[in-house]
């Protein structure tokens, strides 16, 4: 018997990309991440031309088209520059709600991107309104560190 000609039916072909990658972190980024792992330190790189201390540590200052040449330790504390709170569950992303923030660490001329915790998110709007830009933040380090930016578990307000 012929199959029913159902014009409204469309076949959906499901595909998942599952391709493993191994990213060698190079000389500069490796040192940056090793300092996380071994010393709980955040080390920036200073540009010899514009003198800015760059976080994350980079080999090149793109503004000056030059190579950075000095390691500078920055504080693992700083001021909140901006943030956003993810409220919807997206495929492959962490479960909501979670806060993503940019923090200007003491001694750095750029920010660091990280999770922000230690905030009651039972009412997201209230949390967002009460968390002020400029709030002092401190890194909370993991006990077991492996050489990854997630060796910092999150940042949280200092008070």
């Amino acid at each position: 018997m012929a199959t029913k000609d159902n014009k409204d039916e469309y076949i959906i072909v499901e595909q998942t990309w599952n391709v493993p990658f191994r990213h060698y972190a190079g000389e500069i980024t490796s040192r940056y991440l090793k300092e996380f792992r071994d010393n709980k330190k955040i080390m920036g790189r200073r540009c010899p031309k514009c003198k800015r201390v760059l976080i994350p540590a980079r080999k090149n200052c793109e503004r000056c088209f030059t190579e950075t040449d000095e390691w500078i330790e920055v504080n693992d504390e700083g001021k909140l520059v901006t943030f956003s709170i993810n409220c919807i569950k997206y495929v492959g992303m962490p479960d909501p709600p979670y806060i993503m923030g940019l923090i200007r660490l003491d001694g750095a001329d750029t920010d660091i991107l990280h999770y922000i915790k230690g905030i009651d998110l039972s009412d997201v709007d209230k949390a967002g309104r009460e968390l002020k830009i400029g709030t002092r933040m401190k890194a909370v380090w993991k006990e077991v560190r492996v050489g990854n930016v997630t060796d910092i578990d999150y940042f949280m307000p200092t008070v």
Partner: protein
Amino acid sequence: MRVAVIGVGQIPAETCKRDVFSDQSALISKAALADAALDIGQINNVVAGEYDLVTGRTAEHMYTIPSAGGYLKDEIRINDDGLFALAQAYMGIMAGEFETTLVLSTGISSEGPQELITNMRLAPFYHRQLGLHEKLANGMQALQYRERYGVTMKQSAKVAVKNRKNAVRNGYAHLQQEVTEEEVMKSEFDCWPLRVLERAPWSDGGCAVVLASESFARRVCLHPVWITGLGWSNETYYLEDKDLTHLTATKHAAQRAYKMAGINNAVKDIDVAEIYDVTTYHELMAYEALGFCKEGEAGHLIDEGFTQMNGDLPVNPSGGVLSSNPLSASGLSRFVECVLQLREQAQDHQIKNACTGLAHCITGYGAQRSCVAIVRR
């Protein structure tokens, strides 16, 4: 020598096209060719503006360019919004390499998880593992801008109300329901402080543009629209390293485009603008970067109704990206809409006496890249 726009085509934006994505490319191409009254044989070059991964394919132009009629023609794919592809196509004609070019963006967002895909655009060493995606970055940018200049939620809501109202009169728009300020300000949070009605949806759609050299255009087209200005720029990738309250790339792109088009006073010289309003706040920030007002004053502009359909400088009569967001075609759609306005073919969302139009797009985290095009009739 000048470059003319002699044809534009688009397909309606919607949540999910159920036909194969490369079939959409054929529809888009046919629409633009029909509008130009050209045969595909008269096209020398096909330039696609499309991403990888968005439809789960590497090199998706392998399918879209042949479907659009690119067989045995010159081709190139710009891996960015179609408005950048238009810029490259323009230069190919100005270089004397081609007389005609089809610019194509097939924007299919429904085939994959776009938030995760934007996460895949992050450097694997510092950003990828932190659960960041473009909407979250837009939220951070919106908050910083809002706090810096005291932009109110009501002002943001007004942008959404304006654009969604305009979209109701655009048959190609994806979201065609009006919303009220109240509804916007009470809608669900997406990436706080952004609410669902303050940011663009994901859409399936697409558009194409036929460009021609001046001499070719004179032969085949009675009323061509001319590209008089083009500018594009790139700032830093690092969110850590920039002032998110300014659309710096847009500012630089606009300066270049204005200089080329001889525009000294944007507000006076431009009659209609189509802006990449990926969020309501990005539309406001774009007013400032494009020189429609001073820094931090965009809120007043929306309060005064300056950018409404009947305002001094209507922005997004089509409904903008807040109403339709066929990824990779969203910027080129802005251009197509400007051309329709200048040709007085925008039907129900037509504004009066538009001679000069501005099309704008931003792409990347924190609006890293931007392209601005000026068209005149």
